[in-house]
């Protein structure tokens, strides 16, 4: 069958008119009259005992319907993989920005006025400022209840300590390899936590209906996850909860899991029949709601003199902040992929998710891989230096390929991407072999860097996706899935997959743009770059099911066996006599004979997918198969440093990635370019800046510097297509991966330009300037 009919075309996005017309309604554009507004009091301390919370003045303020503190829900604990977080702080606050009290009033102005009347007093406690602080002997234990928290079995907390999860990888005999290795290098690499800074701040609007059902509309990537976790956290059965996920104004992992919904729902349950809106202001979105984890790491590499890696010894300490949230799985994902995309026969790795008194961390684009990649790529650079070897050549020599095993001992199957091809493409784009460092006539220095990455989705072994396909009178098809539109444009990929399967013009395929747990087929979460793959498989299944049904119905009026029928261009026809056929519109809702007799009825195609052959990990060795598919790629940059003031700019960036099959080239490129830009921000400017008491100093978009127009480099994107045998038309996910290699590539290039190994992020002008000064006597 010819698969090239619609795949590989780049039709305009279906949401383009709504988005460029300002007509798309995000969650906060749907506030009904009569909605109550909630405001929160946030902790000004990173660590403190709550001495008192006096709500009386707030309760008496105009328009106020109620005021609440942690004491209102004395037993409720919410969490994603581990229930460790009270909806409002009780007894202690564990981070700057933690919600302490809530006020609900008729208008937002009234609630904001009233929240200032809440009188809370605190007794400050010394804050834990880093994972190493938290692991030091005698450190305060931030979660004394750690042993009793509800959790999933894959998470292994260490009660009595600040370790929320530890994942061990033990492969081969690293001790022996280090003992006999001719070359050993070691380095420590770190960066502080930061924020997603999606343009849409988080918002949840909850209503406890007079019918006893709870409905929450939320800026979430995870409507079904929210439903399940609300059911667990609030003690309501799933059937009494409805979660609606309108298109999201940027996710990047920050809206996966469960966020504002539980508190919004708890407040709404106090006011049956009236919706309660809980919306983050930007500052709260940055520090009170979760950001991304920070990292402290040490990597040792043992190698032969020719560069062949013998062993790695890796310690990854994730700064999870005050609560575990997604970070316990981020650290686990980092362990699964800890070596990066290289053949490493002997591995010892410990990935720890550590509680600190920082804002808590959740999923972030790259999910553990950006962190591990930065650490291992930096260590590889030290090795290349030690060996006097070209850093790209070192990576080529050790590139992981089918047949090799991952750190967990899983064998890389033939679907695994072609990393050497990706490295070659990036080298070509950057003119790698023309020299990596150049002194410019104006005194600036240009330097190049290259890093590799891989990523497997960190998902439950039973991660699923469902899809249905129905038809309208005009013969057009509508696909319904549980996928959330977060900017990635997955619906346009799904539309092309369905169009291809139905051999129908894409303009005749519509994808339902809103996920609703009452109506959409179940779908794990829009995360882990798995929607195109998994919902794509389900969509393909639904289309094939619909085609079979259409043929069955049409075979009667066309008086032929169904297997003689073909579908295409909106018709069902005899394969060997295409003129003899029927339009889909005459069959999809049932066929009507001339005398009025009807057969068939509405066709509904059903499709489903569930992850194949995944298993958990052995708690001692990590052995198992937790990774569904491995996407590989290489990235590189050329940047320009002014040694006089440390200012540094990425001029060109290149990414080559093996995506299996490109479904929608323009959107695929957009995902990679956006991820590269985010990676540049991650590496050069984005991180929280803490004061001595661990308060966040840059919780606004004025002080937290994102890339702006004109600071963007030239982008080069290349795709390699090694088909994913079980992906829809051979496709793999590609939403996150483009960010992963950027910090490593930029750190390598900046280190080369500066003449000093830079082991921290973000690589700001100040950091560059002081590092260069330190090197000089």
């Amino acid at each position: 069958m010819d698969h090239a009919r619609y795949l590989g075309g780049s039709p305009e996005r279906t949401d383009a008119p709504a988005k460029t017309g300002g007509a798309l309604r995000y969650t906060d554009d749907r506030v009904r009259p009569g909605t109550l507004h909630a405001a929160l009091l946030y902790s000004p301390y990173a660590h403190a005992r709550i001495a008192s919370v006096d709500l009386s003045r707030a309760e008496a303020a105009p328009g106020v319907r109620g005021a609440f503190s942690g004491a209102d829900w004395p037993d409720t604990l919410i969490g994603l993989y581990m229930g460790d977080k009270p909806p409002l702080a009780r007894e202690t606050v564990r981070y700057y920005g933690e919600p302490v009290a809530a006020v609900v009033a008729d208008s937002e102005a009234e609630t904001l006025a009233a929240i200032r009347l809440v009188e809370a007093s605190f007794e400050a406690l010394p804050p834990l400022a880093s994972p190493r602080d938290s692991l030091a002997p005698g450190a305060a234990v931030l979660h004394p209840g750690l042993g009793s928290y509800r959790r999933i079995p894959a998470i292994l907390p260490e009660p009595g300590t600040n370790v929320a999860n530890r994942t061990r990888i033990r492969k081969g005999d690293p001790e022996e390899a280090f003992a006999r290795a001719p070359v050993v290098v070691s380095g420590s690499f770190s960066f502080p936590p930061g924020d997603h800074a999606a343009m849409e701040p988080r918002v949840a609007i909850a209503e406890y209906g007079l019918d006893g059902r709870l409905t929450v509309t939320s800026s979430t990537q995870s409507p079904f996850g929210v439903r399940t976790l609300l059911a667990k956290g609030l003690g309501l059965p799933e059937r009494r909860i409805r979660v609606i996920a309108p298109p999201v104004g940027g996710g990047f992992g920050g809206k996966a899991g469960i966020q504002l919904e539980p508190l919004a729902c708890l407040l709404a349950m106090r006011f049956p029949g009236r919706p309660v809106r809980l919306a983050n202001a930007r500052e709260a979105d940055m520090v009170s709601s979760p950001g991304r984890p920070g990292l402290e790491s040490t990597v040792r590499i043992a190698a032969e003199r020719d560069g062949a890696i013998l062993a790695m010894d890796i310690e990854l300490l994730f700064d999870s902040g005050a609560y575990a949230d997604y970070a316990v799985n981020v650290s686990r994902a980092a362990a699964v992929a800890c070596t990066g995309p290289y053949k490493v026969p002997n591995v010892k790795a410990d990935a720890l998710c550590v509680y600190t008194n920082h804002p808590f961390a959740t999923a972030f684009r790259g999910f553990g891989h950006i962190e591990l990649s930065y650490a291992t790529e930096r260590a590889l650079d030290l090795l290349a230096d030690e060996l006097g070897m070209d850093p790209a050549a070192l990576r080529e020599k050790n590139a992981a390929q089918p047949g090799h095993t991952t750190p967990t001992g899983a064998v890389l199957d033939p679907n695994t991407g072609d990393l050497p091809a990706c490295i070659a493409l990036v080298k070509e784009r950057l003119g790698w072999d023309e020299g990596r460092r150049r002194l410019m006539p104006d005194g600036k220095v240009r330097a190049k860097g290259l890093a590799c990455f891989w990523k497997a989705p960190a998902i439950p072994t039973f991660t699923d996706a469902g899809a249905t396909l129905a038809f309208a009178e005009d013969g057009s098809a509508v696909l319904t899935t549980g996928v959330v539109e977060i900017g990635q444009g997955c619906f346009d990929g799904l539309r092309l997959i369905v169009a291809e399967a139905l051999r129908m013009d894409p303009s005749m395929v519509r994808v339902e743009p809103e996920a609703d747990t009452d109506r959409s087929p179940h779908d794990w979460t829009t995360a882990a770059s798995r929607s195109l793959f998994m919902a794509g498989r389900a969509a393909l299944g639904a289309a094939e099911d619909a085609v079979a049904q259409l043929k069955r119905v049409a075979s009667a009026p066309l008086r032929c066996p169904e297997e003689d029928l073909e579908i295409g261009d909106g018709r069902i026809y005899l394969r060997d006599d295409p003129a003899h056929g029927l339009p889909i519109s005459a069959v999809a809702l049932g066929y009507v004979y001339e005398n009025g007799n009807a057969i068939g009825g509405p066709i509904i195609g059903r499709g489903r997918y569930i992850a194949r052959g995944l298993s958990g990990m052995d708690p001692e060795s990590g052995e198992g198969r937790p990774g569904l598919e491995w996407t590989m790629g290489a990235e590189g940059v050329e940047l320009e440093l002014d040694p006089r003031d440390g200012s540094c700019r990425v001029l060109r960036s290149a990414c080559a990635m093996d995506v299996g099959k490109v479904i929608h080239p323009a959107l695929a490129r957009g995902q990679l370019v956006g991820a590269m830009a985010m990676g540049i921000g991650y590496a050069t400017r984005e991180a929280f800046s803490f004061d001595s008491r661990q308060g966040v100093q840059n919780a606004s978009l004025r002080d937290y510097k994102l890339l702006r127009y004109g600071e963007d480099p030239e982008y080069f994107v290349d795709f390699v297509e090694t088909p994913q045998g079980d992906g829809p038309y051979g496709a793999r996910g590609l939403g996150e991966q483009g960010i992963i290699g950027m910090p490593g590539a930029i750190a390598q290039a900046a280190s080369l330009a500066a003449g000093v190994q830079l082991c921290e992020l973000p690589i700001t002008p100040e950091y560059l300037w002081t590092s260069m000064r330190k090197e000089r006597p």
Partner: protein
Amino acid sequence: MTERKGPYELRLRVNGEERAALTRPAETLLRLLRERLGLTGPKCGCENGDCGACTVLIDGVPTKSCMVLAVECEGRELTTIEGLRDHPVQRAFSAENGFQCGFCTPGMIMNAVALVRAHPEPNEEADRNWMGSNLCRCTGYEGIRRALAAARAELAARAGLMPRAKERP
């Protein structure tokens, strides 16, 4: 100078229509547009003037509506994204993938509309100065850069094809 206290009725000209709304003296234009006039195109990205998602035109000048009080806009001509209809800049953002999640897009487009009007010729420095006031977290600005070029090209072609106003019969 007029003094305002408590709720009062404000009359505005928005997207070519006369509109009236009850407002408070402290209400920003952004909140008035979104909450009282139902124009939710302008977005609350930061309400601090940093992100530009709320950009509208006031008498043709791109302005962050979170930084303006509604009361200041009495008698002004306001244009929000809803007031554009199939503008070449909108078409260019659609065709060139100048958006992903779309949340920054209404503000980005309003700023771009004013930019290409003020600078019909490609002008990298002007583009950087103007568009630098709007944040996009998704695109890496590549599609937006392409969209600006495409919009200018279409506007130039249109100017070349259509006779200038004074030449019209």
